[in-house]
């Protein structure tokens, strides 16, 4: 089930590119914060510094990338129309400012500022959701990307709502942040918003970019519906801080959908006609491998203390978060970003010259070497950080933070490089020969 597409609806380059250019700095900020993490990092998952790092990663980096991608995909791939391009241009400014302010307020646990900053973040979510929901609703396509994006927008609202409630209740303590509620909030955001988007759109993007015509996904709709139901159940169960056997059962249910999705993706990739993988294909494989590690560590984290290294469950939770956010989501988004921006550049800058001059193709617009360096540095940093977290090494986390920040800078360089003028790498005549009949 795939969508018939409408590239003529492609939003302007100036609408999408700010998201993709700004997002790497969320990764740089998270890396810098991680490099300065204190010894309390292993004491609990909800110490202010760790919460700030998590929000820099999730909101500043991955969500910013995801928003840019959905503005593009909602219009060009799913086929609908955005509510307002002007609104989107305003929203990117609001989002970057609100996330920076919120992260700063959390890092210093400035409880007076956090509700206002959180409110601005949720306002950014609402403006984004209204714009993209319009694109989804005006599309006639009944596709998996549309279903996944629609469900994801709902979860974005739920995650933002829970988070804002935490912030508003900080001073009165009428909604205390328990471990279970924190897990519900985190999974509404990570699994509901980010993963549902990724699961949905990858059912279209992976076959499209890798020229897959023979195999079809087995599980598509069931993965999306089942995962959505499992997230809801997981969030409700976790909110009551249950004992570990219940947590494990809920976590296994939550992992079932992404596992079936991974099986689908591996099957699809094995049947691809484009045997030479580009950055998107390689990132998909790396990201899927990180999903496997995320699930294993996540199940161990659900059990908690009985299986935690040195009896410290925080180590498992840190490793789980790093693998899921940085490894699974981050690697996938980095790979796709090197398709989204070059496609937009090709469409708006080079396509009008087709037939009159040699124009570059998408592969000429981005640097495969920089893209590979971006993916490799991110994967290396994530793996290093996960091992450091499991080992309880603060020095390792500091070094990993610097690697993460470096990876963010490489990603930014890769995105910025796409804007440099490019020429065609193919040997074609400058002009189509004219035949007079």
């Amino acid at each position, binding site marked *: 089930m795939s969508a*018939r597409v409408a590239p003529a609806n492609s939003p302007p380059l100036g609408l999408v590119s700010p998201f993709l250019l700004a997002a790497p700095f969320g990764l740089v900020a998270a890396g810098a914060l991680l490099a300065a993490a204190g010894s309390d990092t292993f004491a609990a998952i909800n110490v202010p510094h760790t919460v700030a790092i998590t929000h820099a990663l999730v909101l500043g980096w991955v969500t910013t990338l995801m928003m840019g991608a959905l503005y593009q995909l909602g219009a060009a791939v799913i086929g609908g129309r955005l509510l307002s391009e002007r609104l989107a241009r305003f929203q990117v400014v609001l989002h970057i400012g609100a996330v920076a302010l919120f992260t700063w307020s959390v890092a210093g646990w400035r409880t007076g500022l956090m509700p206002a900053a959180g409110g601005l973040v949720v306002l950014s979510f609402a403006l984004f959701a209204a714009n993209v929901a319009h694109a989804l609703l005006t599309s006639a396509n009944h596709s998996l990307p549309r279903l996944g994006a629609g469900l994801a927008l709902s979860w974005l609202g739920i995650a933002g709502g829970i988070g804002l409630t935490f912030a508003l209740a900080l001073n009165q303590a009428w909604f205390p942040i328990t471990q279970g509620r924190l897990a519900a909030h985190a999974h509404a955001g990570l699994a509901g918003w980010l993963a549902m988007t990724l699961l949905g759109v990858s059912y279209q993007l992976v076959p499209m970019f890798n020229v897959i015509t023979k195999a079809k996904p087995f599980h598509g709709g069931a993965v999306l519906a089942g995962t959505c139901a499992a997230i809801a159940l997981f969030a409700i169960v976790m909110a009551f801080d249950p004992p570990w056997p219940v947590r494990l059962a809920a976590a296994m249910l939550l992992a079932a959908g992404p596992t079936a999705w991974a099986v689908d993706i591996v099957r699809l990739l094995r049947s691809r006609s484009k045997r030479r993988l580009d950055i998107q294909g390689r990132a998909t494989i790396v990201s899927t491998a990180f999903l496997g590690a995320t699930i294993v560590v996540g199940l161990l984290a659900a059990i908690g203390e009985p299986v935690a290294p040195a009896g410290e469950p925080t180590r498992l939770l840190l490793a789980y978060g790093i693998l899921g956010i940085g490894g699974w989501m981050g690697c996938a988004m980095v790979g796709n970003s090197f398709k989204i921006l070059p*496609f937009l550049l090709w469409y708006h800058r080079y396509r009008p010259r087709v037939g009159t001059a040699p124009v570059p193709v998408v592969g000429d617009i981005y640097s495969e070497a920089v893209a590979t360096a971006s993916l490799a540095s991110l994967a290396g940093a994530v793996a290093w950080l996960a091992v450091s977290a499991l080992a309880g090494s603060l020095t390792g986390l500091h070094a990993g933070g610097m690697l993460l920040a470096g990876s963010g800078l490489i990603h930014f360089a890769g995105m910025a490089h796409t804007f440099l003028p490019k020429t065609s790498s193919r040997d074609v005549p400058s002009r189509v020969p004219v035949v007079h009949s």
Partner: protein
Amino acid sequence: MNPSSVASALSHVFDPELGIDVVSLGLVYSIDCVANDMTVAMTTTSASCPMGPAILQDAAVILHRAFPGATVSVEFTDEPAWHPDMLSQQARSILGLPMTA
């Protein structure tokens, strides 16, 4: 104007994602030339290819430029659905697929 010269012009239309021309990709199913009219039937590698409509439009633009006096019609068809067996040997080489006999 004949099918061969039309195909030659179409070989300047590239799938911008794959970097391979539409003729080598096997996307051009038929070329009919009658007097000053030409009708080209083309497909895309995938129904969900975001480049598909753009490629068809580019084909029409290039044919108009190559044959200024002709009436050009470029039509989309997905019958039969595109299959990798339709790739030329050159395209297979670029994609990393083994050569066929």
